[in-house]
Each structure stands twice: as C-alpha cells, then as structure tokens.
C-alpha cells in the first residue's frame, strides 16, 4: 500500500490528487503486463494545448489626434508559445490572434483613426497615416503552481514596439512587458488557469498602452512637434 504524508503538501487538494494517483498506480505497480506502461506514458505525456480567445473591453480614454497604422504580421498573429524544456510541463499556447483582437479594441478609441495592415508595404495605400506601429512579441514566460508552490499561474510577455513616420524613419523603439496571474488555480483545469492568466496579461498590456503610449519620450516629442506643426498649418490656412 502507498501512503502519503500530508506534511509534505501545503495544499490538501494535492494530497487528494496524489491519493487518486496512487489508487490508479497500485495495480499498475503490481502488474506484470508491461504492455500497460506505454499506455500510461501516453496518458501522462500529453501536451497542454490552448488557444487564447477572449473578449476585451474598449478602453475609456481621450483619443490621440493622429491616424495610426498597425502592422499585424504573421510573427504576431500566428505566435504560438511552445515549452522546450524537458523538465517542465509541455505547453503549446496560441496567443497571436488574441493579441490582434486586443490591439484592435485598444487602438480604436486610443487614436482618432486606426488602420490595420498585414504588411508594412500596405502602408503606401494610405497617405493619411501619421505613424506606423509594428508590435512584436519578444518573449513569453510562465510559472505554474508546481514550480512556485503558490496556487497561482503567472504569465509574463515581453514586447518590442517600433513606431515609424510616413518617411520610414524610426520615431520610437521601446520594450514593454505585460504580467498576468490567476488565483485559485486548483479549482480549474491547468488550461483554464493558464488561459485566464494570459487574458489578465493581455488586459495589462492594453492598460499599459492606453495609459503609457503618449508618455513614451520619443512619442511625446513627436506628438508635440506634430501638434505645433498642425497649429501652424491651421494658422497659415486661416490667414
């Protein structure tokens, strides 16, 4: 008989799961039919796969008075995180489409006009563009309760944001990060908990963009110059 010492597990749910596990393992340990082991290996070696799909609210904000084009290239829209480490759980997390969805919800009220593009070349078809944004996912990291001993799934995503003017000159290039965690992970499946953590991270990204885009020093300078230039043009036109 297999016994479990509860002192080793801070979470009572852990020992319940282990109890169930030992219940299943007991006959297998005694079993001489080795043919069962490959089946067990398949069962325990499954990949946790999920595609993040969520609705995001539109932010409440005063729009910045420019036309912004955003390039959603394949690096962004088809981004799938795959865990490479053999010592960790196998994860395959599709976050690309969710990012595109979030950006569209956030940029629509954040700018006077926003245009979605698939490639940089398409920008030539829109002469009204003031700035062109190319967001890229640089890094995706997570931690699970098994690693941290806290019943929380955590997700960090690092981005590189590049903004160009209509002449193709780089205006700003900065790194952003988003963080999300989900509580009570033991109440849900691993996939649900991870999904929720990613959604919280994406909301965090949306919050950072809404509150911080115009505060990026290079963007702020460009906006001030653009505003001054627009005022001068308006004054000249008025004369």
């Amino acid at each position, binding site marked *: *008989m*297999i*016994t*479990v*010492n*509860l*002192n080793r*597990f*801070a*979470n*009572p749910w852990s*020992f319940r799961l282990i*109890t169930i596990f*030992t*219940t299943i393992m*007991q*006959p297998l340990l005694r079993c001489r039919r080795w043919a069962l082991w490959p089946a067990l290996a398949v069962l325990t070696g499954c990949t946790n796969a999920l595609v993040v799909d969520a609705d*995001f*609210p*539109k*932010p*409440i*904000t*005063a729009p910045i008075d420019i036309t912004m084009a955003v390039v959603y290239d394949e690096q962004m829209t088809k981004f799938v995180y795959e865990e490479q480490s053999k010592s960790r759980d196998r994860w395959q997390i599709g976050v690309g489409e969710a990012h595109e969805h979030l950006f569209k919800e956030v940029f629509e009220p954040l700018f006077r006009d926003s245009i979605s593009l698939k490639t940089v070349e398409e920008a030539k078809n829109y002469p009204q563009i003031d700035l062109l944004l190319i967001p890229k996912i640089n890094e995706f990291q997570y931690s699970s309760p098994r690693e941290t001993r*806290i019943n*929380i799934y955590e997700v960090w995503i690092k981005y590189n944001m590049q903004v160009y003017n209509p002449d193709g000159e780089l205006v700003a290039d900065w790194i952003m990060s988003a*963080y999300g*965690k*989900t*509580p*009570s992970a033991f109440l849900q499946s691993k996939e649900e908990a991870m999904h929720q953590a990613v959604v*919280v991270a994406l*909301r*965090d990204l*949306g*919050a*950072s963009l*809404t*509150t911080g885009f115009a505060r990026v020093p290079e963007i702020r300078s460009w906006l001030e110059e653009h505003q001054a230039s627009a005022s001068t043009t308006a004054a000249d036109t008025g004369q």
Partner: protein
Amino acid sequence: MSFPQPATQSRPARSQQHWLGLMVLPLLMLAGGCTTITIDEHRIAPNYIEIDDNQSVVVLGRRHSSDYETEPDLVDCVGDVLASGSSGLTVVPEQKFVDALYPWFEPRTAPMHVGDLKRYLQSPEIASAMDTYKVRYIIWIDGNTETTDSSGSIGCSITVGGAGCFGFGTWEKESDYEAEVWDYQKLETEGQISADASGTSYMPAVIVPIPIIARVQTSACKGLGEQLKGFFANQH
C-alpha cells in the same frame, strides 16, 4: 429457559439501512469543521453611511500583490451578502464595473488611495462612465484564504476484491481580509473592517474518505458582508 433471539433483519430492512447510509454519507461530507472568526471595525464616519435608493455600491478585490490575489468568488460572495434581504443594497458586479471602467481599475492601474480618484475624475470620460452606474461607494477588499498547515496520512489501494482507503488527514485554513469603504462623492474613506477566520478540516478515511470541511472563506465572507451591511443599516 428461553434466550432472546438475535435480532434478524428482513431483506427490505437491510435495504432501508443501506439507503439510510447513503443519505447520511453526503450529510457527513457537508458537515463543517470548526471555524472561528474575528471582525474588527474602524468606523471613521460617526453615524451610519448615507446611501439613496437609486445609488449603488461596487465591491472590488485588490489584485496588486505578487504572491496572492483576493479571490473573485469572495468578492462576489460579499456583494451577494450586501444585496440580500429587505435592506439589501444595489451592488454592481465587479467584472461588469471593471470592464466598463477599463483600464482604470486593472491590477496595475487601480487607485490605491481615495485621493487618487480625484485624478481619475479629472477625465470627463472616466467620470461619465462612473456616473452611468450611479456608484456612491467603492468597497475594496484585500486579502486571501490560504492553507497554513496540514498533517496526517491516507493510503489507498485497489485489489481484485475491491478498493479502499485508510488513514486520517487534517488541514488548517486561515482567511485574512480587510475591507475599506470609499465615498465616491466626498472622496474620503468612511471606514475599514478586517475579518480574520480560521478553521480546521478533517478527512477520516475508513474505506471511503469522508471530508469534513471547515468553510473558512465562506465564514469570512458572511462576517465581512454582514458587518459592512451594518454600515448602511438604517438607510432602508
């Protein structure tokens, strides 16, 4: 000399006993372990808090800490307690409010002090969204429930003749929550309440494990909710 005959049970009587057992088992599973709760109140307003019938409150959980989060189900539970009964308040659901005010009440952006609200309300867009819900009071809840200790051992086995477990397990949970009431109109704190609850759950296992759960978080929720309701008690 006659000896009393051993009691025998007919087949239907055994069946009744069997069903009785099946009915008692869930009751045992629902039986709660012991829970103690301590509520501390710090009321800044000298009297009860004023709230009109057409005004509402929103209960929000703090999510800025790195190692815990105030559980959404605890926040919902407190909201349900506040909304219940004849003197119930109009409570705006947390997620609905947070989505409507996005991104100003996200973990990273939420105001930490009542004075921060002034800065938010300088934006006409945020002020207008707040007015839509006729929110008079914002109740922030910060804290969580965690397992602090566990001991015992349970072993289970399956044989050809059947399966069963034997042993005894116990674990202790502690809740520690603090609620702060902000007056959205006056932009000041009206009061604070803290609720500490702890309880021990047991799981004896003789063939079948029977969990006797101490509902610590539920007790903390009810204690906190009723005490908060007392802030508004004489208005209805």
